[in-house]
């Protein structure tokens, strides 16, 4: 029983790491109804910028601030160059644009900082900590706390302020949003900047775990099942989806692994997501499509 709890808790904490990445997708999906293919590149770009500054002797917080400013500048540039000319185009057009954007961001990252692998030390020990008889990773606890603070900040921003309702309005109907005086450009800029910030946080934690390298942009693949289960439009859903994925993949690995062979962790989330697609395509918290027949 104790062992079960330990696996479960470890899985839940690891799942929040996936949630961190998934939240970035949710933000942009909420604002434009588009799956932002470039989110992974933004995670990579921010981590790479941060670690490269750090390696050049820039202090931690200065590096953090400079990287954050870079991500805001990136959001500004994306809004100007990519989104503004595509106002009122169908979502598939925007999706294709983000696809192209991901290559550009990765290319720029490589041109600026090179392609080698960097180690990132955030000063958080990965040594296990004993809590209530369970051994838990300090690093996982730290990232879980970070995810919690981030969600709190985002829910204040999007549920309590007019930005939230404007965001949903923009996603629903751009023309109508313009007609009631919502500044489309400003909303997009805010959302992409916040998504950049979330990408930075995710990039630092994942970078510290896996090393900062180009394959970092692939962590988005694990965010996909999280989004499918939690729903593309809900930040809470991204958290719950992450917890479900994290817990179930670890439990499956430990309890099913010996029976049907190891390495389940790698594919189990996708099977789970597939099952969810059959039963509840909008995810647990996603907005179900309303259609009058």
């Amino acid at each position, binding site marked *: 029983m104790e062992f079960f709890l330990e696996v479960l808790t470890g899985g839940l904490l690891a799942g929040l790491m996936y949630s961190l990445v998934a939240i970035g997708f949710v933000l942009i999906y909420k604002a434009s109804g588009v799956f932002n293919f470039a989110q992974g590149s933004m995670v990579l770009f921010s981590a790479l910028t941060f670690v490269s500054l750090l390696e050049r002797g820039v202090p931690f917080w200065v590096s953090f601030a400079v990287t954050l400013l870079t991500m805001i500048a990136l959001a500004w540039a994306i809004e100007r160059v990519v989104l503004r000319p595509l106002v009122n185009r169908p979502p598939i057009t925007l999706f294709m644009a983000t696809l192209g954007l991901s290559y550009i961001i990765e290319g720029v990252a490589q041109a600026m900082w090179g392609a080698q692998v960097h180690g990132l030390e955030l000063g958080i020990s990965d040594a296990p900590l004993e809590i209530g008889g369970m051994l838990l990773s300090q690093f996982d606890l730290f990232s879980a706390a970070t995810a919690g603070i981030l969600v709190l900040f985002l829910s204040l921003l999007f549920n309590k302020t007019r930005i939230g309702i404007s965001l949903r*309005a923009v996603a*629903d109907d751009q023309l109508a949003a*313009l*007609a009631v005086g919502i500044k489309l450009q400003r909303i997009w800029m805010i959302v992409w900047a916040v998504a950049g910030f979330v990408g930075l946080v995710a990039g630092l934690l994942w970078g510290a775990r896996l090393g900062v390298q180009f394959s970092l942009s692939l962590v988005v693949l694990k965010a996909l099942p999280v989004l499918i289960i939690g729903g593309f439009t809900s930040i809470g859903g991204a958290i719950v989806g992450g917890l479900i994925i994290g817990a179930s993949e670890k439990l499956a690995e430990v309890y099913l692994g010996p029976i049907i062979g190891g390495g389940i962790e790698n594919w189990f989330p996708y099977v789970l997501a597939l099952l969810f697609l059959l039963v509840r395509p909008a995810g647990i918290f996603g907005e179900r499509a*309303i259609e009058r027949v």
Partner: protein
Amino acid sequence: MGATPLLELQRISLSFKGVKAITDISFTVEQGEICALIGPNGAGKSSLLNVINGVYQPDQGLIGFNGQRYQKMQSHQAAVQGIARTFQNIALFKGMSVLDNVLTGRNLKVKSSWIEQAFHIGRALADEIKQRQKAEEIIDFLRINQWRNSIVGTLPYGLQKRVELARALASEPRLLLLDEPMAGMNREEKSEMSAFILDTQREFGTTVVLIEHDIGVVMGLSDHVVVLDYGKKVGDGTPDEVRKSPEVIAAYLGTTH
């Protein structure tokens, strides 16, 4: 009627990739009047509304609004100046409730900053109460109370049209642009919508420019009728004057083409 007109279009022309949609159109709309734009499909009526509220920028001409002149209007600027509108194919926020939709119309009236709103400090509370009150007033006015918490996408068409009007009215506009507010409605719904438009004009003194195909409704509702055909103005006057004009009869009955 006020001394200066609220809206004054001067020689507006608009084309799309060389195809002329509007050619050299001028007319004025007085404060507080209901002005109808009529004409066959493709006459340029919707394009003209889009020019007025800044969705399209005209190639030539000036838009005078409330004493100011604009070579081109931006959507946001139009909203700030007090121009609100509804769309031909309802453009509501379908996933949100009726109340939330109406509240988006209050967007520009919000005074508190997002920091105040997030932490419920400063002006946030008073602001929130004010916006809700106004939204509720409009909801009462258009009698959509019983659906206030319904998700808009689930409501029948006629009601959605009314919610769209509510959202436009929530911004307390000086000029209300209605693009076929009665399209697809039966006679009863049409007379209901006409009554709401008249009430709006009387109660709030709102100036209205509307596009409508039902000539019976137009003649009963409007103070002023402008007739378009092939992007040109072919008639302009009171309903009675326009009814007798040979050009208008030609455009409508198709004797010349």
